[in-house]
């Protein structure tokens, strides 16, 4: 084979192999880290995964916030006005967290079916409603 073509072939094969490996790894990591969103009704109905993390969101139910007197542990309920899910969190809540406000929690269901949150998100201004939460509230209203 023509030496120049051979050299080019080597370069191209190396690059293709490298990119294929990288792509494979990346897509694998991608699929492992896709986080789906579920509404409280879906979680209660058992549609949420039990083995890996997911997001659940809704309005914070008024009067449901309970704080542990000795630590920063807190638990509260989120609702889509049909069903509620109790969320347990062991960190400082975000500034915009408020009863009646829309929030999204990231975490997992433990063996007892309680949702242990790694992260609680309440972004933007006080009028902001996460689109997912709005969508599930609308869906619940229609049913």
């Amino acid at each position: 084979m023509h030496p120049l073509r051979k050299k080019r072939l080597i370069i191209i094969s190396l690059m293709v192999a490298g990119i294929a490996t990288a792509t494979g790894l990346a897509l694998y990591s991608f699929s492992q880290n896709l986080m789906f969103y579920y509404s409280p009704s879906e979680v209660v109905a058992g549609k949420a995964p039990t083995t890996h993390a997911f997001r659940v969101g809704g309005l914070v139910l008024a009067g449901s916030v309970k704080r542990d007197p000795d630590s920063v542990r807190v638990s509260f309920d989120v609702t889509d006005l049909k069903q509620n899910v109790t969320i347990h969190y062991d960190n400082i809540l975000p500034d915009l967290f408020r009863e009646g406000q829309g929030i999204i929690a990231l975490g997992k269901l433990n063996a007892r079916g309680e949702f242990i949150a790694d992260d609680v998100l309440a972004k933007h201004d006080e009028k902001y409603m996460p689109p997912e939460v709005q969508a599930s509230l609308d869906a619940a209203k229609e049913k």
Partner: protein
Amino acid sequence: MIPELGNIALILALCMAVIQSVLPITGTFTNNQALIRLARPAASLQLTFMVISFACLLYAFITHDFSVRYVAENSNTRLPFIYLVSGVWGAHEGSLLLWALVLSIWTMMVNLFSRGIPEDMVARVLAVMGLISIGFILFILLTSNPFARQFPVPIDGFDLNPLLQDPGLAIHPPMLYMGYVGFSVAFAFAIAAMLQGKLDAAWARWARPWTMASWIFLTLGIALGSWWAYYELGWGGWWFWDPVENASFMPWLVGTGLLHSLAVTDKRNTFKAWTVLLSVLAFSLSLLGTFLVRSGVLTSVHAFASDPARGVFILIFLVIVVGGSLSLFAWRASIFKNNVRFNLLSRETFMLLNAVLFVVMAGFILLGTLYPLLLDALNMGKVSVGPPYFNTIFIPLGIPIVLILGIGITARWKQDNGSRLIKALRMPMILSVVLGTVTAVVLVRGVFTAELASFKFIGAELALILAWWIVINSGKLITDRLKNRDNKMSGLQLIPRAVYGMTVAHIGVAVFVVGIILTSLFSIEKDVRLSNNSSVELAGYEFVFEGVRNVLGPNYQAAEGRVLVRKDDKDLVLLHPQKRYYPVKQNTMTEAAIDASLWRDLFVALGEPLGGSPDKSKLEPLDKSNTGAWSVRVYYKPFIRWIWLGALIMSIGGFISATDKRYRVRKLAKQLNMQDNEVATGA
């Protein structure tokens, strides 16, 4: 009246942009010198009108003209002056006006600093930039006009988002835009070359300083954003792989690849197709980034259902830019024909690998950023891609990049010898492993008191070996150049400035790598409940909580904590973290207190008052019945300043490079003129 004046100035700027683009481009095709010469004055006029327009908006902010809807939505009579200024670019419409202004500034700079470049080339470059200006100004006039009035006029404005009331975030958009928009210059040069039908090393030499300048601004802009997120968003993180952050990081990655590809085209007259494609890609990602951040796509794709105009315009604009440049590329494919050979083992190959790795990294980040949007747009569910995905791709790609850095600067151009290369790399390899391990042991045992057999030690060791690898290879490059000289001092002076710039920038990379790895591995965070005079211990420091009192700011009220930090029974520093409440927007903000130093940051943020109601809309006065207990977040963050220091050093290196004598086109032009005259007179 003034806002209307601003609107008119904007329309006039649009007219100037049309003159700046359509006529000169026609002139270059018909070889009409009069039309070609229109580009420069049109650019000057466009800048003048853009400045007037921007000044009018600024005036409206400063005079509290709440009849202008944008002003009312983003300012308030109690807003401090500096934020009246930065509020101009605080939201969508004004931010786009800033973009258009920055574009006209870059256009003017190309106008001023291009005397040594052939006139028709300059005309093409200015024309392409003019076309981009047309796109942006049209977008502003048709869908996002900051001068829109409202009636009835409110008595007071809404207020600028408190997150933006901060000096760091005030300067962040202008910096970022200088970078984003600057890539339009590289893009314009690439398009101009393709239109001209000629792409050579001289072209690369013209384009390099412009690309470098924008890259410097983008680096600083991203670093500023990260630093701001760290101290302002309150939770000690400095990068969240947020779509907004990714939108700025992708053009940076491609831009870095472009810088290196341009260097090869300049020196070796090869990689032409790569350079052009990277220019197109960098600018396209800049556009995509601007629009991702500014169009509302990220809050909800379905926001377009209510305001489709913006999204549709953006999409069409992107299709024209990307589709047009790629079509042009295909049409002119013959000018990229490459007769320059290089060996498999040569610096060219390593530079190529470098470019490929950067593009691949950008591609994976693009996938993670756009996939959720795509799914949402197709109504196929709402997903988010978590940080672990991005972290997982960053490391396996980052390590080869750093390794290739060391090999690439050591390898010879065109043709290198395998055994020579290995011999040249042997000392750096051994030395970096030794030094890396030694420094890792010292840090991990001595400072962080972690176990040597742990994953953390291996991570730290790897990071330090990679950093020393860069430093030693860079140093060796300099010492090798001095090897055969008797007079080392004059040898140092003879080394081109660009080599020093490259070395400094690469050292910046090393500092950056050390910063991100060490801080990720060895940061310690605690969320605790503290009441008066209780304390918490962290990394050898003692944090004593001395209570909270109420203070008043210009447009906020705050609960200010007093935290005394002690070490080894000695008082170190008194920190005052605040919890601010802004009554106009009813927002609560956390102002963290940071004791910063080169080697570690101590970070304290107030959480919430415990024992009070969870309703944060009111700060309750601390009366005796309140237990005074607060949840407090305390962080120990080692080497975190190295992250932004590394970015700063990279920028300084870039600046040193860009000021190399070889780019002084005027001097070159004069020399060429003199040579021509000599030839002509036969002297």
